[in-house]
């Protein structure tokens, strides 16, 4: 039954997308049906996911794995690929997050997108995204994983470029697409390697026979690193992260759903899903962990300097996914998934609260033109506050438990883990500072100079209700897994992570990590209050200090400029040189030589074609005569 419902869950958003996209053929339909189809399809999918979840809860843990094949899609050369879904505890968790958070964000969008012309296009594309993301997590083989992977890429491209009249939105969309394709290439190559080595792409068989690749073998390393190229591109890990901050040109609900809560965490899901492969190669795991560490630290420093409210959140997303990737690289798969879940809650809350601010201010996104919003937007203020406390890891809030779990477990994961703990703790301090900088600058203090051009108006219930629900989840979501208490996430994921290395910290490590984590969070908030909250002039007085390094941070270490110079510039120069020097002489010469030969010989031969019958007759007779003379001479001799 679980798989039947699974197919329905997968089909609903697709049907919603098709219905919205195809009917009516012309003109904009009334908003009522669009809302009913667009939001309803996701609501039903969520309810059905909850039903499947309940039925799985009733099962024995060892039986929580359902695979169903609809039909055989390809059978070539011994490799067969089925259109099949897999519902195990890992994909179940992802389905609940995708449909649950997805539904709340769809509901929020009803009001947020109210002023936009292309209402149904928005919901059609959002439904398509949910379908693609479900396909990605429910696939039973690498082929449909890659199909879903590509689909979420195109959905992300469409929604980043939603405001296609704006040049920078189109540019960002292209950038995101190109960088994601780099990742797709890595994934496809990994799949090819698996086919060559194991002759199958089904998860069950690949993971059961992964040992044939050989522990610490070059093949296992290559497969893992290629998969990680895909994961890094999708999850905004350095050096493939720079599309994610630019992706903020899309509407805010899109940023919340795709570029914070679900799609960008697909890379983490992929690593956890393929843990069997990553366990084969410790070098691959270490690489993943180091990339995660670098990303989480650098992104946190960049987030400190951003002025655009959404870019602060985008860089914070890059940083938080860095935590998950580091955890996955260290082998802390359940901790990574736990942080993925709480991150989905609090980052969606933060984005939706930011969206409420942007909506209330008529599109204003700069922190420089915000202030004192606490008095105008109560719901957004409380939600933002809850989200900030959660992401900063304030004791008792969701991020506290999940981030602490990653850090405490890192301590037990060898030398690299200890380095990860230090980097992660410093970045946690930065996280608290940059998030509360945002909160204090936008919501505290006086109104900005000259007041608001667009008087802030509080949101209606369409936006307020989902925001409040997510804020509550951001506060309490962490209590699902409490140190020294209960480990519901670990227990739930255990059947999907059979054979993963058991890493657990000692009591001392756990306690030390909890205490340091609490101190860091409180200290970060206090520093932010000192710099940005208590005395608003202090920030301006400090503005002249270290202006150069600050500008580098504002530009995200100027990586975009480096890419422009190194990759785009070089390619363009090469193309120019080929056009100028090679194409006219080289390629042109090869083509024009035969042309000249044919032309020249034709010019000579055409003289024979006079069109005069008598000339032809004469030539004929002369020819026959000549031939006759030759024969006669030959016979005579």
């Amino acid at each position, binding site marked *: 039954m679980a798989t039947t419902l699974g197919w329905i869950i997968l089909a609903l958003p697709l049907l919603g997308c098709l219905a919205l996209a195809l009917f009516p053929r012309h003109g904009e339909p009334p908003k009522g049906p669009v809302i009913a189809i667009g939001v309803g399809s996701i609501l039903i999918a969520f309810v059905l996911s909850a039903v499947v979840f309940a039925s799985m809860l009733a099962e024995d843990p060892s039986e929580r794995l359902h695979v169903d094949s609809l039909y055989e899609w390809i059978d070539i050369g011994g490799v067969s690929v089925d259109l099949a879904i897999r519902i195990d505890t890992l994909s179940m968790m992802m389905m609940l997050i995708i449909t649950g958070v997805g539904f709340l964000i769809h509901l929020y969008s009803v009001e947020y997108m109210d002023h936009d012309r292309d209402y149904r296009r928005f919901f059609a594309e959002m439904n398509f995204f949910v379908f693609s993301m479900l396909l990605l997590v429910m696939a039973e083989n690498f082929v449909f994983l890659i199909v879903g992977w590509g689909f979420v890429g195109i959905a992300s491209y469409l929604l980043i470029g939603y405001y296609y009249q704006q040049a920078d939105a189109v540019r960002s969309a292209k950038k995101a697409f190109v960088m994601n394709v780099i990742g797709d290439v890595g994934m496809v190559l990994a799949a090819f390697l698996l086919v060559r080595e194991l002759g199958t792409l089904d998860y069950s068989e690949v993971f059961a026979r992964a040992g044939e690749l050989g522990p610490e073998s070059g093949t296992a390393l290559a497969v893992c690193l290629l998969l990680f190229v895909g994961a890094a591109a999708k999850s905004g890990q350095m050096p493939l992260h720079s599309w994610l901050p630019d992706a903020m040109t899309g509407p805010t609900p899109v940023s919340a759903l795709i570029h914070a809560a679900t799609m960008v965490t697909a890379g983490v899901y992929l690593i956890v899903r393929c843990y069997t492969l990553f366990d084969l190669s410790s070098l691959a795991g270490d690489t993943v962990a180091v990339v995660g560490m670098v990303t989480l630290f650098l992104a946190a420093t960049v987030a400190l300097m951003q002025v655009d409210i959404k870019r602060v959140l985008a860089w914070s997303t890059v940083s938080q996914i860095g935590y998950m990737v580091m955890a996955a690289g260290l082998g802390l798969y359940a901790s990574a998934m736990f942080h993925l879940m709480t991150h989905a809650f609090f980052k969606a809350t933060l984005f939706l609260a930011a969206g409420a601010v942007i909506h209330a201010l008529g599109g204003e996104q700069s922190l420089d033109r915000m202030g004192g919003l606490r008095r105008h937007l109560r719901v957004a203020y409380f939600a933002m506050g809850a989200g900030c406390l959660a992401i900063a890891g304030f004791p008792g809030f969701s991020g506290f438990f999940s981030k602490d779990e990653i850090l405490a477990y890192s301590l037990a994961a060898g030398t690299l883990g200890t380095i990860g703990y230090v980097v992660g703790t410093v970045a946690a301090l930065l996280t608290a500072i940059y998030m509360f900088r945002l909160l204090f600058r936008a919501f505290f203090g006086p109104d900005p100079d000259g007041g608001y051009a667009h008087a802030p108006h509080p949101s209606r219930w369409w936006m307020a209700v989902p925001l409040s629900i997510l804020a509550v989840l951001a506060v309490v979501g962490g209590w699902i897994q409490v140190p020294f208490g209960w480990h519901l996430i670990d227990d739930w994921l255990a059947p999907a992570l059979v054979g993963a290395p058991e890493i657990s910290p000692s009591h001392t490590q756990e306690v030390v990590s909890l205490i340091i984590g609490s101190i860091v969070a409180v200290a970060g908030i206090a520093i932010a209050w000192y710099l940005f909250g208590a005395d608003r002039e202090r920030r301006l007085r400090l503005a002249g200090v270290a202006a150069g390094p600050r500008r580098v941070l504002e530009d995200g270490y100027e990586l975009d400029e480096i890419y422009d110079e190194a990759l785009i510039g070089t390619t363009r120069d090469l193309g120019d040189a080929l056009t100028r020097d090679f194409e006219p002489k080289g390629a042109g010469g090869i083509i024009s030589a035969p042309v000249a030969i044919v032309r020249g010989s034709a010019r000579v031969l055409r003289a024979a074609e006079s069109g005069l019958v*008598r000339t032809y007759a004469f030539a004929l007779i002369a020819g026959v005569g000549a031939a006759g003379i030759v024969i006669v001479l030959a016979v005579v001799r």
Partner: protein
Amino acid sequence: MTGVPLAFYIGLSAAMFLIGMLGVMIRRNPLLLLLAVELMLNSANVALVGFSRHWDDSAGQIFALVVMVVAAAEVVIGLGLVVATFRQRIELDVDQLSTLKG
């Protein structure tokens, strides 16, 4: 072997062929051109029949009949072209009819 000697046949055939050949090369009216071509074909027939009698083999006579059939077919096409050209009020002069010049 009685009757006309072979040399007479060959002589007549050669004369007819030369007359036809000169006609083809000199005449500019397509109608006369066709006549000249017919003359050449029939010179070949005379030679065939002559050889047929000389060797006492009927194959040559059958060849002559086949040549006549081919000649008839050729004349039908040639005269058709001449009539078609004439109805277009184009001058009947093979030197002027040179549209197919390369």
